[in-house]
């Protein structure tokens, strides 16, 4: 198994919308120039239409691989655990030309935190955006709304500050409620692949590593924990618990945003990331 990325996707064949396919088969979206900004996607891959991309690309070179099984990336045989994902993204990081700002969204935030906990010389800064991945509450308290056992309409309601303002062509949790006849076939195929892959990696325990919370104190890079104030998939209190466990971590809320603040408040998201990186340089 190999990430197949050696230089921020530069060796890959350009396809469209800044998406390329690396020699190892991973689909990669890249945009901008400068210090690498590695995006680790969450429920769904980073869409070329994502409203924060251009703003963020003014601060470095965005590199956003689609993890195996997600997007159009193939999934090698027996690549089926969080352990595999963590090793793959470590390999991606190691292959970058410079130290990277790593931004993990939701499920991708969990991956990013696993990498940071294990330690990576190539991680410059860490931004966790509404991550899942740790267990905080008691055994009869659910920290994370169940992605797969909750009705799509309920997921849609809990995931967004205002589901009606979901940016066209991008999908977060509750994407099923956005299905209409106008959606391109490829979007539906990719959503199905993403949903299947997410389930494969994180059905049980659902969306967390029971041990991770005990080791977050090992994170040694400056860390920003960003949270949508209206997120009811994982609440801001859960986010504060995350931040408390990471030495020196900053916790910030983004108003009028749910589980996907980068999609609902793209400018605020970019501003917070830029300010954090500048302030900790």
């Amino acid at each position: 198994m190999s990430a197949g990325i050696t230089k921020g996707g530069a060796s890959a064949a350009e396809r469209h919308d800044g998406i390329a396919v690396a020699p190892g088969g991973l689909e990669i979206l890249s945009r901008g120039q400068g210090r690498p900004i590695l995006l680790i996607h969450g429920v769904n891959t980073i869409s070329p239409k994502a409203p924060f991309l251009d703003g963020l690309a003014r601060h470095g070179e965005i590199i956003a691989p689609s993890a195996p099984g997600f997007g159009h990336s193939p999934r090698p045989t027996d690549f089926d655990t969080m352990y595999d994902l963590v090793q793959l993204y470590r390999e991606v990081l190691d292959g970058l030309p410079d130290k990277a700002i790593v931004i993990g969204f939701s499920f991708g935030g969990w991956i990013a935190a696993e990498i940071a906990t294990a330690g990576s010389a190539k991680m410059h800064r860490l931004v966790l955006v509404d991550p899942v991945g740790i267990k905080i509450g008691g055994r009869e308290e659910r920290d994370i709304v169940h992605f797969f056992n909750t009705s799509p309409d309920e997921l849609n309601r809990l995931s967004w500050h205002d589901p009606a303002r979901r940016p066209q062509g991008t999908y977060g949790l509750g994407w099923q409620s956005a299905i209409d006849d106008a959606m391109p076939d490829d979007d539906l195929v990719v959503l199905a692949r993403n949903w299947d892959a997410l389930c494969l990696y994180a059905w049980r325990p659902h969306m967390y590593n029971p041990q991770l919370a005990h080791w977050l104190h090992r994170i040694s890079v400056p860390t920003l924990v960003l949270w949508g104030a209206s997120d009811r998939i994982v609440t801001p209190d859960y986010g504060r618990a995350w931040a408390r466990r990471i030495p020196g971590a900053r916790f910030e809320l983004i108003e009028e945003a749910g589980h996907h603040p980068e999609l609902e408040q793209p400018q605020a998201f970019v501003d917070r990331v830029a300010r954090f990186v500048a302030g900790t340089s």
Partner: protein
Amino acid sequence: MQLWNHCECPYPFVSQEILDQADSVRASLPNMLCDPKIVATLYDEIFDEYRLCDDLGLHIVTNEHHAGINNLWAANPVITGVVARVTRKARILSLGTLVTVRPDPVRIAEEYATIDVLSRGRLEIGFVKSGATEMVNGDANPMRIREREWEAIDLIEKTLTTHDGPFSWEGKFFTHPFVNIWPRCWQSPRPDFWAATSDFPTCAELGRRGIVNTLLFGGYDRTRQAFDAYKRGRAEAGLAPPGEDRFSYMGFCYVGDTDEEAYRIGQKIPWFLTVSIKSAPQFSTFQPGAVAPEMAPKAWRRGAGSKRPTNLDVESLVRQGQMFAGNPDTVVKQIKEFRRRVGGLGSLIMMTRQGLVTHAEAEKSFELCAREVLPQLQDLEPLDEPAAPVEPWRAVATAAP
């Protein structure tokens, strides 16, 4: 041909108003709606039906579903063990406990070996891939269940057939460093295996392994295609053509004194499809793995949520080959026609005590079936497609210790 009674022990006692309001009648319906006193009576009635079938020469199928009005046999090995103890002659097919949900196939093998001994060699072991709400109630990952099922089957088979253990198993999905069950099973080398599927590649694999292929409500065409896939799987592997006993079909069935009576009572059976399978979209259409990604545009654009079947009157179901209903002679004709059109059938599994069918109605159908239908299905002329002899180890099974 062998005839089997399959009852899922349904619970049609929750008010329609509540069922209409619920988004799912499986998985999430609170068990405050289930009265254990009613369930106890149901259990008594159905075990009495099993005993009647045992006396009459019909065989018995048990299965397993969880947390729903459709089925109260949640603990299949427990139920099958009881059947083993209260019957004397009938073969008993567990179809089956949920091997893709349960964590330890060795334990399953142990349960089956125990039942095989209890029944003195009357057990047949069935496998189902499962899915949907079962994954939710069992907290089992719905992805890769077919691969998990095959590994479970392999481990169960090795556990049942290894007698110089302990042996070690370090598989993809299951590990067990010290496998050695007591008692070992009665039949040698093991009870016959069955599997319920209409997936053609899986049918072909069943063919290569000699596992009985049973279809559930597949109708004429799908069943024929599945059985053909089974036969091709064997032929392409250079194996002898399968015996007719390798093919089984489950359909609704009611035998009455007259066609009119059978149709009237038979109309109570499709409750199974009209009411008891209502399932929320997150447990069905949108469950991961439920739809192959390349099929998602077609599957999801038609609208989310469970598809409620149509054409569920007895006449339509009979026409589609999903139900056998009428007076005994009518039913014999239907079964013979079905056997001819699907290219051979060794077992018919009859779902009779289903939906709103009463205990007395079920017993009447079984009696007519055993006395007037079953004799007409013995020593049938071979079909044009010659059937191979019975698998050799099935013959061995009857000469158990």
